[in-house]
């Protein structure tokens, strides 16, 4: 009986110690992603909702814009980039502190958006007429 009591006290103490240490240090034993939020509090929806549903919001907007031509919706990928691009790198990608990459690296969820979309805010691409146009311009009728 005494042994059981001692064991229980021991376990409780250990748990209490862990909780206290965590609370004092302000961190849990689980590593968390480091996110820099450049413009806090200005998002289109509360943080919890964004964390859970941002992919559905983006997909919904994507289909409405791409297929129906609806513009100016509340949520947009370019809107995300304009607000969340890192002030250091100008991008939402590039380091594990940058907005999109930080969580997605942490959660090991592949980001396909940036294969086609531009991850830098206010980016202006240079255009060069393809060098091959001279050769393709020779079509004769």
């Amino acid at each position: 009986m005494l042994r059981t009591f001692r064991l229980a006290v021991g376990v409780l103490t250990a748990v209490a110690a862990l909780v206290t240490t965590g609370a004092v240090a302000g961190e849990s034993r689980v590593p968390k992603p480091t996110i820099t939020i450049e413009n806090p509090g200005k998002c289109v929806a509360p943080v919890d909702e964004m964390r859970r549903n941002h992919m559905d919001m983006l997909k919904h907007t994507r289909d409405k814009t791409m297929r129906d031509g609806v513009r100016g919706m509340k949520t947009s990928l370019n809107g995300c980039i304009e607000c969340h691009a890192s002030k250091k790198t100008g991008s939402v990608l590039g380091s594990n502190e940058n907005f999109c990459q930080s969580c997605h690296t942490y959660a090991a969820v592949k980001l396909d958006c940036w294969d086609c979309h531009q991850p830098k805010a206010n980016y202006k691409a240079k255009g060069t007429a393809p060098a091959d146009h001279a050769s393709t311009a020779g079509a004769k009728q």
Partner: protein
Amino acid sequence: MSERNHTEKVTPPEGASRRNFIGAVAAAGGLAAIAPGIHLVQVSQANTPPRPAGEAASKTVRWGMLIDTTKCTSGCNDCVKACATENGINETVKDARQGAQWIRKIDIKEVKTGRSHSLPMLCQHCANPPCVDVCPTGASMKRADGIVLVDRHICIGCRYCMLACPYKARSFVHQPLTEQNPEVPRGQGCVESCTFCVHRVDKGQIPACVETCTKQGHNAMLFGDLNDPNSEISRRVAQVTTTQVRADLKLDLGVRYQGI
């Protein structure tokens, strides 16, 4: 190209060149009518009001383009360059045959008479697009206002549409891209083609090629709503003979050529 080839016949007053005459009319009249129903391109290329936010593209609109080959000069590449700048086409390809084909200049020649033309060839934005017919995933699509697009989100890069297109208007991106413009996403593994600068049209602007052609004073390209009888393009196609390339295919093209 000689200005005498224009379909718009104008008799200038004696002692004044045609150009000066038009300039004077434009300055005096504001709405520069040079013949009944025909207006100067410069005046007509004013932008339309942008579609309000949240409103879908309407099927009451049919965007179209009229290309006046009598004004298009061989060797002029301004529309191609404008397209590349607007759409962030800047990659170098290993094989010239893999290059982007959003818009290209071609020279054609009537064999018997020797009459030659130069014209830009781009996606003709068919009303019955073969690329949409053959697409196995539904990525090739026609928007309600007649603009034919590739939905890259579901394009699997099979290139069946490239084979189906009679105009060779589509191309495939072979290499990874990083220099896209934010409004024009494009990337490896997808087929792409002219979008009529859909991001600009939705804002009430005209496509970059048409804008540049007009700004440079060539005035060979005209963009507008073919369904609106009062639009400049509708008036022009009602007045002058225009041709659909490969009209025998009955694809009902959005792009028409004048003078070929």
